Protein backbone atom coordinates (compact mmCIF):
# COMPACT_ATOMS: atom_id res chain seq x y z
CA UNK A 1 0.00 0.00 0.00
CA UNK A 2 1.16 3.50 -0.90
CA UNK A 3 -0.05 6.40 1.24
CA UNK A 4 0.38 10.04 0.33
CA UNK A 5 -0.65 12.45 3.09
CA UNK A 6 -1.02 16.21 2.74
CA UNK A 7 1.93 16.23 0.40
CA UNK A 8 3.34 19.57 -0.68
CA UNK A 9 6.37 19.89 -2.92
CA UNK A 10 7.69 23.24 -4.05
CA UNK A 11 10.58 23.93 -6.41
CA UNK A 12 11.42 27.55 -5.79
CA UNK A 13 8.24 29.40 -6.66
CA UNK A 14 6.71 26.43 -8.51
CA UNK A 15 4.21 24.42 -6.49
CA UNK A 16 4.44 20.98 -8.09
CA UNK A 17 2.31 19.15 -5.51
CA UNK A 18 -0.16 21.10 -3.45
CA UNK A 19 -1.67 19.30 -0.47
CA UNK A 20 -2.19 15.93 -2.12
CA UNK A 21 -3.60 12.94 -0.21
CA UNK A 22 -4.54 9.51 -1.57
CA UNK A 23 -3.92 5.83 -1.03
CA UNK A 24 -3.03 3.12 -3.48
CA UNK A 25 -4.41 -0.25 -2.39
CA UNK A 26 -3.09 -3.71 -3.15
CA UNK A 27 -4.90 -6.14 -5.42
CA UNK A 28 -5.82 -3.65 -8.10
CA UNK A 29 -4.25 -1.51 -10.79
CA UNK A 30 -4.48 2.16 -9.90
CA UNK A 31 -4.22 4.60 -12.77
CA UNK A 32 -2.52 7.92 -11.98
CA UNK A 33 -3.84 10.58 -14.32
CA UNK A 34 -3.53 14.30 -14.80
CA UNK A 35 -2.52 16.92 -17.35
CA UNK A 36 1.11 17.66 -18.18
CA UNK A 37 2.77 19.27 -15.20
CA UNK A 38 0.05 18.09 -12.80
CA UNK A 39 2.63 16.63 -10.42
CA UNK A 40 2.44 12.89 -11.10
CA UNK A 41 6.15 12.31 -11.61
CA UNK A 42 6.99 14.61 -8.72
CA UNK A 43 4.68 12.62 -6.43
CA UNK A 44 6.38 9.39 -7.49
CA UNK A 45 9.83 10.87 -6.86
CA UNK A 46 8.80 11.94 -3.38
CA UNK A 47 7.31 8.50 -2.66
CA UNK A 48 10.67 6.99 -3.68
CA UNK A 49 12.63 9.33 -1.45
CA UNK A 50 14.37 10.98 -4.40
CA UNK A 51 12.91 14.40 -3.68
CA UNK A 52 12.23 15.59 -0.15
CA UNK A 53 8.68 16.77 0.50
CA UNK A 54 8.24 20.43 1.46
CA UNK A 55 5.61 19.19 3.92
CA UNK A 56 3.45 16.14 4.38
CA UNK A 57 4.65 12.61 3.83
CA UNK A 58 4.60 9.64 1.53
CA UNK A 59 4.80 6.09 2.88
CA UNK A 60 5.03 2.64 1.37
CA UNK A 61 3.79 -0.15 3.60
CA UNK A 62 3.71 2.35 6.45
CA UNK A 63 7.39 3.31 6.11
CA UNK A 64 9.42 5.93 4.36
CA UNK A 65 11.04 4.47 1.28
CA UNK A 66 14.44 5.83 2.25
CA UNK A 67 14.34 3.80 5.47
CA UNK A 68 14.00 0.51 3.55
CA UNK A 69 16.94 -1.87 3.23
CA UNK A 70 17.23 -3.75 -0.07
CA UNK A 71 14.11 -1.96 -1.28
CA UNK A 72 13.97 -3.59 -4.70
CA UNK A 73 12.44 -6.65 -3.03
CA UNK A 74 9.53 -4.51 -1.91
CA UNK A 75 9.17 -1.77 -4.49
CA UNK A 76 9.83 -1.71 -8.21
CA UNK A 77 9.83 1.59 -10.07
CA UNK A 78 10.14 2.85 -13.60
CA UNK A 79 10.53 6.61 -13.69
CA UNK A 80 12.23 7.40 -16.96
CA UNK A 81 12.99 4.74 -19.51
CA UNK A 82 15.62 6.85 -21.23
CA UNK A 83 17.68 6.91 -18.00
CA UNK A 84 20.37 4.45 -19.04
CA UNK A 85 24.06 4.93 -19.67
CA UNK A 86 24.23 4.72 -23.45
CA UNK A 87 27.55 2.92 -23.37
CA UNK A 88 26.58 0.19 -20.92
CA UNK A 89 24.95 -3.03 -22.04
CA UNK A 90 21.38 -3.78 -20.99
CA UNK A 91 22.61 -6.81 -19.08
CA UNK A 92 25.26 -4.86 -17.15
CA UNK A 93 22.74 -2.10 -16.42
CA UNK A 94 20.39 -4.62 -14.83
CA UNK A 95 23.13 -6.58 -13.12
CA UNK A 96 24.51 -3.46 -11.43
CA UNK A 97 21.06 -2.67 -10.03
CA UNK A 98 20.53 -6.30 -9.06
CA UNK A 99 23.82 -6.53 -7.18
CA UNK A 100 22.94 -3.61 -4.91
CA UNK A 101 20.05 -5.68 -3.54
CA UNK A 102 21.74 -9.06 -3.52
CA UNK A 103 19.90 -10.28 -6.61
CA UNK A 104 21.84 -12.78 -8.71
CA UNK A 105 22.67 -12.96 -12.41
CA UNK A 106 20.17 -15.78 -12.98
CA UNK A 107 17.27 -13.53 -12.07
CA UNK A 108 18.68 -10.86 -14.38
CA UNK A 109 18.87 -13.32 -17.27
CA UNK A 110 15.31 -14.49 -16.58
CA UNK A 111 13.99 -10.93 -16.69
CA UNK A 112 15.88 -10.09 -19.86
CA UNK A 113 14.10 -13.10 -21.36
CA UNK A 114 10.72 -12.09 -19.91
CA UNK A 115 10.78 -8.57 -21.36
CA UNK A 116 11.92 -9.84 -24.74
CA UNK A 117 15.44 -8.38 -24.78
CA UNK A 118 17.38 -11.66 -24.70
CA UNK A 119 18.78 -11.15 -28.19
CA UNK A 120 20.15 -7.67 -27.48
CA UNK A 121 21.07 -7.84 -23.78
CA UNK A 122 24.80 -7.54 -24.54
CA UNK A 123 24.32 -4.55 -26.83
CA UNK A 124 24.91 -1.01 -25.63
CA UNK A 125 21.67 0.47 -24.33
CA UNK A 126 22.36 3.64 -26.31
CA UNK A 127 21.47 1.73 -29.47
CA UNK A 128 18.00 0.79 -28.16
CA UNK A 129 14.73 2.16 -29.49
CA UNK A 130 12.32 3.86 -27.06
CA UNK A 131 10.25 0.70 -26.78
CA UNK A 132 13.33 -1.41 -26.05
CA UNK A 133 14.35 1.04 -23.33
CA UNK A 134 10.85 0.80 -21.83
CA UNK A 135 11.24 -2.97 -21.72
CA UNK A 136 14.61 -2.56 -20.04
CA UNK A 137 13.08 -0.20 -17.48
CA UNK A 138 10.28 -2.65 -16.78
CA UNK A 139 12.81 -5.44 -16.29
CA UNK A 140 14.60 -3.22 -13.74
CA UNK A 141 11.34 -2.59 -11.91
CA UNK A 142 10.61 -6.31 -11.67
CA UNK A 143 14.13 -7.36 -10.53
CA UNK A 144 13.27 -7.92 -6.88
CA UNK A 145 9.82 -9.45 -7.49
CA UNK A 146 8.33 -6.53 -5.54
CA UNK A 147 4.90 -6.30 -3.89
CA UNK A 148 4.57 -2.65 -4.92
CA UNK A 149 5.06 -1.37 -8.47
CA UNK A 150 5.17 2.23 -9.55
CA UNK A 151 5.49 2.92 -13.26
CA UNK A 152 5.56 6.37 -14.85
CA UNK A 153 4.25 6.18 -18.43
CA UNK A 154 5.52 2.67 -19.13
CA UNK A 155 3.48 2.26 -22.30
CA UNK A 156 5.13 5.16 -24.18
CA UNK A 157 6.84 3.88 -27.27
CA UNK A 158 5.77 0.26 -26.92
CA UNK A 159 4.46 -1.56 -29.96
CA UNK A 160 0.93 -3.07 -29.88
CA UNK A 161 2.27 -6.40 -28.70
CA UNK A 162 4.19 -4.61 -25.93
CA UNK A 163 1.16 -2.56 -24.93
CA UNK A 164 -0.95 -5.67 -24.54
CA UNK A 165 1.87 -7.42 -22.73
CA UNK A 166 2.17 -4.57 -20.17
CA UNK A 167 -1.58 -4.50 -19.69
CA UNK A 168 -1.77 -8.22 -19.00
CA UNK A 169 1.35 -8.11 -16.85
CA UNK A 170 -0.03 -5.28 -14.70
CA UNK A 171 -3.39 -7.01 -14.36
CA UNK A 172 -1.83 -10.32 -13.40
CA UNK A 173 0.52 -8.66 -10.88
CA UNK A 174 -2.47 -6.90 -9.29
CA UNK A 175 -4.42 -10.16 -9.29
CA UNK A 176 -1.58 -11.69 -7.26
CA UNK A 177 -2.35 -9.08 -4.60
CA UNK A 178 0.35 -6.56 -5.48
CA UNK A 179 -0.02 -2.81 -5.39
CA UNK A 180 0.30 -1.29 -8.87
CA UNK A 181 0.40 2.45 -9.58
CA UNK A 182 0.56 3.36 -13.22
CA UNK A 183 0.62 6.78 -14.84
CA UNK A 184 -0.34 7.29 -18.46
CA UNK A 185 -1.90 9.78 -20.83
CA UNK A 186 -3.44 7.06 -23.00
CA UNK A 187 -7.04 6.99 -21.86
CA UNK A 188 -8.24 4.08 -23.95
CA UNK A 189 -5.37 1.97 -22.65
CA UNK A 190 -5.95 3.08 -19.08
CA UNK A 191 -9.63 2.18 -19.38
CA UNK A 192 -8.57 -1.38 -20.20
CA UNK A 193 -5.89 -1.66 -17.52
CA UNK A 194 -6.96 0.22 -14.40
CA UNK A 195 -9.52 -0.72 -11.74
CA UNK A 196 -9.12 2.47 -9.80
CA UNK A 197 -8.15 6.00 -10.75
CA UNK A 198 -6.42 8.85 -8.99
CA UNK A 199 -6.72 12.03 -11.05
CA UNK A 200 -4.76 15.15 -10.13
CA UNK A 201 -4.41 18.63 -11.59
CA UNK A 202 -2.11 21.48 -10.58
CA UNK A 203 -0.84 19.30 -7.75
CA UNK A 204 -4.27 18.78 -6.19
CA UNK A 205 -6.57 15.80 -6.06
CA UNK A 206 -9.42 15.96 -8.56
CA UNK A 207 -10.89 12.49 -8.32
CA UNK A 208 -10.12 9.25 -6.50
CA UNK A 209 -12.41 6.30 -7.12
CA UNK A 210 -13.12 3.08 -8.97
CA UNK A 211 -13.00 3.41 -12.74
CA UNK A 212 -16.63 2.29 -13.12
CA UNK A 213 -17.78 5.05 -10.76
CA UNK A 214 -15.88 7.77 -12.61
CA UNK A 215 -16.90 6.73 -16.09
CA UNK A 216 -20.67 6.79 -16.68
CA UNK A 217 -22.21 3.76 -18.40
CA UNK A 218 -21.65 3.94 -22.12
CA UNK A 219 -19.27 6.92 -21.77
CA UNK A 220 -15.56 6.91 -22.42
CA UNK A 221 -12.80 7.48 -19.92
CA UNK A 222 -11.43 10.16 -22.23
CA UNK A 223 -14.65 12.19 -22.00
CA UNK A 224 -14.85 11.73 -18.26
CA UNK A 225 -11.18 12.69 -17.82
CA UNK A 226 -11.43 15.79 -20.00
CA UNK A 227 -14.51 16.93 -18.13
CA UNK A 228 -12.89 16.40 -14.73
CA UNK A 229 -9.62 18.09 -15.60
CA UNK A 230 -11.06 20.91 -17.72
CA UNK A 231 -10.26 23.52 -15.09
CA UNK A 232 -6.79 22.20 -14.32
CA UNK A 233 -5.00 22.17 -17.65
CA UNK A 234 -1.93 24.39 -17.44
CA UNK A 235 -0.13 23.56 -20.63
CA UNK A 236 -3.01 23.30 -23.13
CA UNK A 237 -2.56 23.94 -26.84
CA UNK A 238 -3.66 27.37 -28.03
CA UNK A 239 -7.01 27.40 -29.71
Amino acid at each position, binding site marked *: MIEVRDLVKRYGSTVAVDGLSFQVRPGQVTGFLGPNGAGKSTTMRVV*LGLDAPTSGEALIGGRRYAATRRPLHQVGALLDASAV*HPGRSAYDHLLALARTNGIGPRRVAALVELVGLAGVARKRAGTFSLGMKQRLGIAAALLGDPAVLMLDEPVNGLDPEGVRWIRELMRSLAAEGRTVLLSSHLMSEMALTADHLVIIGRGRLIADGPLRDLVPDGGSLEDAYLRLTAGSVEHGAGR
Partner: protein
Amino acid sequence: MIASLSAEWLKIRSVRSTYVVLAVVALAVVIGALFVWQGMAVFDGLPPERRENFRVIPMEEYMLPMVQLALGVLGVLAITSEYAHGTVRSSLVAVPARGTLLAAKAAAVAAVALAAGQAAVFATFLVTRALVGDRPIPDHGAPVAQQAPQLLLLGLSVAVFAMVGLAFGVATRSTAGAIVSVVALLFVIPAGITYLPAPWGTRLSAVMLPNLPDQIAGALGWRSEEVVVGPWARVPVLSPVWAAVALAAYIVVPLAAAAVLFRRRDA
Protein backbone atom coordinates in the same frame (compact mmCIF):
# COMPACT_ATOMS: atom_id res chain seq x y z
CA MET B 1 27.95 -1.89 1.49
CA ILE B 2 29.63 -4.90 -0.15
CA ALA B 3 26.61 -5.28 -2.43
CA SER B 4 26.74 -1.61 -3.42
CA LEU B 5 30.49 -1.80 -3.89
CA SER B 6 30.25 -4.73 -6.31
CA ALA B 7 27.59 -2.82 -8.25
CA GLU B 8 29.77 0.30 -8.47
CA TRP B 9 32.70 -1.80 -9.55
CA LEU B 10 30.59 -3.27 -12.35
CA LYS B 11 29.46 0.22 -13.39
CA ILE B 12 33.06 1.40 -13.69
CA ARG B 13 34.26 -1.53 -15.72
CA SER B 14 31.24 -1.63 -18.03
CA VAL B 15 31.76 1.76 -19.68
CA ARG B 16 34.27 2.75 -22.33
CA SER B 17 35.37 5.98 -20.63
CA THR B 18 37.21 3.94 -17.98
CA TYR B 19 39.35 2.32 -20.64
CA VAL B 20 40.05 5.67 -22.28
CA VAL B 21 41.30 6.96 -18.91
CA LEU B 22 43.52 3.89 -18.48
CA ALA B 23 44.84 4.33 -22.03
CA VAL B 24 45.82 7.91 -21.18
CA VAL B 25 47.68 6.60 -18.14
CA ALA B 26 49.54 4.08 -20.29
CA LEU B 27 50.34 6.87 -22.75
CA ALA B 28 51.83 8.94 -19.93
CA VAL B 29 54.23 6.10 -19.16
CA VAL B 30 55.20 5.79 -22.82
CA ILE B 31 55.76 9.54 -23.20
CA GLY B 32 57.89 9.60 -20.05
CA ALA B 33 60.01 6.78 -21.42
CA LEU B 34 60.42 8.53 -24.78
CA PHE B 35 61.62 11.72 -23.07
CA VAL B 36 64.29 9.83 -21.15
CA TRP B 37 65.28 7.79 -24.18
CA GLN B 38 65.76 11.03 -26.11
CA GLY B 39 67.61 12.55 -23.15
CA MET B 40 70.02 9.63 -23.02
CA ALA B 41 70.79 10.03 -26.72
CA VAL B 42 71.65 13.67 -26.05
CA PHE B 43 73.71 12.74 -22.98
CA ASP B 44 75.73 10.18 -24.92
CA GLY B 45 76.55 12.81 -27.56
CA LEU B 46 77.87 15.33 -25.00
CA PRO B 47 81.59 15.81 -24.30
CA PRO B 48 82.47 14.50 -20.81
CA GLU B 49 82.97 17.95 -19.24
CA ARG B 50 79.40 18.96 -20.10
CA ARG B 51 77.88 15.72 -18.88
CA GLU B 52 78.33 16.85 -15.27
CA ASN B 53 75.62 19.50 -15.58
CA PHE B 54 73.19 17.21 -17.36
CA ARG B 55 69.87 16.88 -15.52
CA VAL B 56 66.78 14.79 -16.16
CA ILE B 57 63.54 15.43 -14.30
CA PRO B 58 62.32 12.15 -12.81
CA MET B 59 59.62 11.20 -15.29
CA GLU B 60 57.34 9.72 -12.63
CA GLU B 61 57.16 13.30 -11.34
CA TYR B 62 57.03 15.03 -14.70
CA MET B 63 54.24 12.86 -16.14
CA LEU B 64 52.30 12.69 -12.86
CA PRO B 65 49.88 15.58 -13.60
CA MET B 66 48.69 13.77 -16.73
CA VAL B 67 47.91 10.67 -14.65
CA GLN B 68 46.34 12.74 -11.88
CA LEU B 69 44.14 14.55 -14.38
CA ALA B 70 43.06 11.29 -16.07
CA LEU B 71 41.99 9.68 -12.80
CA GLY B 72 40.47 12.95 -11.61
CA VAL B 73 38.26 12.74 -14.69
CA LEU B 74 37.41 9.13 -13.82
CA GLY B 75 36.23 10.33 -10.40
CA VAL B 76 34.21 13.12 -11.97
CA LEU B 77 32.53 10.80 -14.48
CA ALA B 78 31.64 8.22 -11.84
CA ILE B 79 28.92 10.57 -10.63
CA THR B 80 28.34 13.18 -13.37
CA SER B 81 27.58 10.51 -15.98
CA GLU B 82 24.79 9.37 -13.65
CA TYR B 83 23.39 12.88 -13.52
CA ALA B 84 23.81 13.37 -17.27
CA HIS B 85 21.92 10.19 -18.15
CA GLY B 86 19.45 10.27 -15.27
CA THR B 87 20.62 6.95 -13.83
CA VAL B 88 21.33 8.56 -10.47
CA ARG B 89 17.63 8.15 -9.75
CA SER B 90 17.53 4.44 -10.45
CA SER B 91 20.75 4.08 -8.44
CA LEU B 92 19.12 5.83 -5.48
CA VAL B 93 15.92 3.82 -5.84
CA ALA B 94 18.08 0.70 -5.51
CA VAL B 95 20.24 2.17 -2.71
CA PRO B 96 18.26 4.86 -0.86
CA ALA B 97 20.99 5.23 1.78
CA ARG B 98 22.85 8.04 0.05
CA GLY B 99 25.91 7.86 2.24
CA THR B 100 26.26 4.19 1.36
CA LEU B 101 25.92 4.87 -2.37
CA LEU B 102 28.52 7.63 -2.27
CA ALA B 103 30.89 5.59 -0.12
CA ALA B 104 30.60 2.63 -2.49
CA LYS B 105 31.33 4.89 -5.46
CA ALA B 106 34.29 6.45 -3.65
CA ALA B 107 35.72 3.05 -2.76
CA ALA B 108 35.40 1.69 -6.30
CA VAL B 109 36.93 4.83 -7.83
CA ALA B 110 39.70 4.90 -5.23
CA ALA B 111 40.61 1.28 -5.92
CA VAL B 112 40.93 1.88 -9.67
CA ALA B 113 42.78 5.16 -9.20
CA LEU B 114 45.19 3.75 -6.64
CA ALA B 115 46.00 0.77 -8.84
CA ALA B 116 46.42 2.95 -11.94
CA GLY B 117 48.45 5.56 -10.05
CA GLN B 118 50.85 3.06 -8.50
CA ALA B 119 51.19 1.16 -11.78
CA ALA B 120 51.98 4.35 -13.70
CA VAL B 121 54.49 5.65 -11.14
CA PHE B 122 56.34 2.38 -10.67
CA ALA B 123 56.30 1.52 -14.39
CA THR B 124 57.69 4.95 -15.28
CA PHE B 125 60.34 4.71 -12.56
CA LEU B 126 61.48 1.25 -13.59
CA VAL B 127 61.43 1.88 -17.33
CA THR B 128 63.32 5.16 -17.06
CA ARG B 129 65.88 3.65 -14.69
CA ALA B 130 66.45 0.90 -17.21
CA LEU B 131 66.96 3.53 -19.94
CA VAL B 132 69.34 5.58 -17.78
CA GLY B 133 71.31 2.46 -16.91
CA ASP B 134 74.57 3.24 -15.10
CA ARG B 135 74.97 6.75 -16.47
CA PRO B 136 75.71 9.18 -13.62
CA ILE B 137 72.51 11.23 -13.84
CA PRO B 138 71.54 13.06 -10.62
CA ASP B 139 68.22 12.03 -9.04
CA HIS B 140 68.39 8.75 -10.93
CA GLY B 141 70.64 6.74 -8.65
CA ALA B 142 68.50 5.36 -5.84
CA PRO B 143 67.32 1.76 -6.21
CA VAL B 144 63.58 1.12 -6.29
CA ALA B 145 63.53 -0.45 -2.82
CA GLN B 146 64.97 2.71 -1.29
CA GLN B 147 62.74 5.05 -3.29
CA ALA B 148 59.55 3.01 -2.83
CA PRO B 149 57.97 5.09 -0.01
CA GLN B 150 58.15 8.23 -2.12
CA LEU B 151 56.84 6.41 -5.19
CA LEU B 152 53.93 5.01 -3.20
CA LEU B 153 53.04 8.53 -2.09
CA LEU B 154 53.05 9.73 -5.70
CA GLY B 155 50.71 6.88 -6.63
CA LEU B 156 48.51 7.70 -3.67
CA SER B 157 48.18 11.30 -4.82
CA VAL B 158 46.54 10.00 -8.00
CA ALA B 159 43.80 8.40 -5.89
CA VAL B 160 43.42 11.67 -3.96
CA PHE B 161 42.80 13.50 -7.23
CA ALA B 162 40.16 10.91 -8.12
CA MET B 163 38.41 11.53 -4.78
CA VAL B 164 38.54 15.28 -5.32
CA GLY B 165 37.13 14.74 -8.82
CA LEU B 166 34.28 12.64 -7.42
CA ALA B 167 33.52 15.29 -4.82
CA PHE B 168 33.55 18.08 -7.42
CA GLY B 169 31.27 15.94 -9.59
CA VAL B 170 28.77 15.57 -6.75
CA ALA B 171 28.92 19.29 -5.99
CA THR B 172 28.56 20.55 -9.58
CA ARG B 173 26.49 17.66 -11.05
CA SER B 174 28.11 18.69 -14.33
CA THR B 175 30.93 16.90 -16.15
CA ALA B 176 32.31 20.10 -17.65
CA GLY B 177 32.08 22.06 -14.39
CA ALA B 178 33.77 19.36 -12.36
CA ILE B 179 36.58 18.77 -14.85
CA VAL B 180 37.29 22.50 -14.98
CA SER B 181 37.49 22.44 -11.17
CA VAL B 182 39.98 19.56 -11.21
CA VAL B 183 42.10 21.33 -13.83
CA ALA B 184 42.01 24.47 -11.70
CA LEU B 185 43.23 22.55 -8.66
CA LEU B 186 45.94 20.75 -10.61
CA PHE B 187 47.25 23.46 -12.97
CA VAL B 188 45.55 26.83 -12.76
CA ILE B 189 45.75 27.61 -9.04
CA PRO B 190 49.32 26.25 -8.60
CA ALA B 191 50.39 28.36 -11.58
CA GLY B 192 48.29 31.39 -10.65
CA ILE B 193 49.87 31.81 -7.23
CA THR B 194 53.06 32.69 -9.08
CA TYR B 195 51.80 36.24 -9.20
CA LEU B 196 51.40 36.61 -5.45
CA PRO B 197 54.00 38.70 -3.61
CA ALA B 198 56.84 36.73 -1.97
CA PRO B 199 56.82 34.71 0.21
CA TRP B 200 53.14 33.88 -0.38
CA GLY B 201 53.71 32.10 -3.66
CA THR B 202 56.05 29.61 -2.01
CA ARG B 203 53.93 29.26 1.12
CA LEU B 204 50.74 28.52 -0.79
CA SER B 205 52.66 26.31 -3.17
CA ALA B 206 53.51 24.14 -0.18
CA VAL B 207 49.86 23.27 0.42
CA MET B 208 49.00 22.63 -3.22
CA LEU B 209 47.99 19.02 -3.68
CA PRO B 210 50.69 18.16 -6.28
CA ASN B 211 53.40 19.35 -3.90
CA LEU B 212 52.34 17.29 -0.88
CA PRO B 213 53.62 13.74 -1.61
CA ASP B 214 57.25 14.83 -1.87
CA GLN B 215 57.00 16.88 1.32
CA ILE B 216 55.62 13.83 3.15
CA ALA B 217 58.46 11.77 1.70
CA GLY B 218 60.91 14.16 3.43
CA ALA B 219 64.49 13.36 2.48
CA LEU B 220 63.33 10.94 -0.23
CA GLY B 221 61.20 13.62 -1.85
CA TRP B 222 62.20 15.18 -5.15
CA ARG B 223 63.16 18.89 -5.00
CA SER B 224 62.68 21.12 -8.01
CA GLU B 225 64.72 24.09 -6.88
CA GLU B 226 64.07 26.16 -10.01
CA VAL B 227 60.31 25.66 -9.96
CA VAL B 228 58.70 27.23 -6.90
CA VAL B 229 55.09 27.36 -8.10
CA GLY B 230 52.95 25.37 -10.53
CA PRO B 231 52.09 21.66 -10.69
CA TRP B 232 55.78 20.70 -10.66
CA ALA B 233 56.74 22.90 -7.72
CA ARG B 234 58.48 20.84 -5.05
CA VAL B 235 59.23 23.31 -2.29
CA PRO B 236 59.88 21.67 1.08
CA VAL B 237 58.12 24.06 3.42
CA LEU B 238 55.95 21.69 5.44
CA SER B 239 57.24 18.97 7.71
CA PRO B 240 56.24 15.44 6.63
CA VAL B 241 53.59 15.30 9.37
CA TRP B 242 51.92 18.54 8.38
CA ALA B 243 52.12 17.62 4.71
CA ALA B 244 50.39 14.34 5.57
CA VAL B 245 47.70 16.23 7.47
CA ALA B 246 47.17 18.47 4.44
CA LEU B 247 46.94 15.48 2.10
CA ALA B 248 44.38 13.82 4.39
CA ALA B 249 42.39 17.05 4.37
CA TYR B 250 42.28 16.92 0.57
CA ILE B 251 40.55 13.54 0.88
CA VAL B 252 38.28 14.19 3.85
CA VAL B 253 37.08 17.75 3.32
CA PRO B 254 35.81 17.50 -0.28
CA LEU B 255 34.22 14.08 0.27
CA ALA B 256 32.54 15.17 3.49
CA ALA B 257 31.17 18.28 1.81
CA ALA B 258 30.01 16.15 -1.13
CA ALA B 259 28.26 13.74 1.23
CA VAL B 260 26.38 16.60 2.90
CA LEU B 261 25.24 17.95 -0.47
CA PHE B 262 24.37 14.52 -1.82
CA ARG B 263 22.17 13.73 1.17
CA ARG B 264 20.48 17.07 1.25
CA ARG B 265 19.62 17.71 -2.37
CA ASP B 266 16.79 16.32 -4.47
CA ALA B 267 18.00 13.78 -6.98
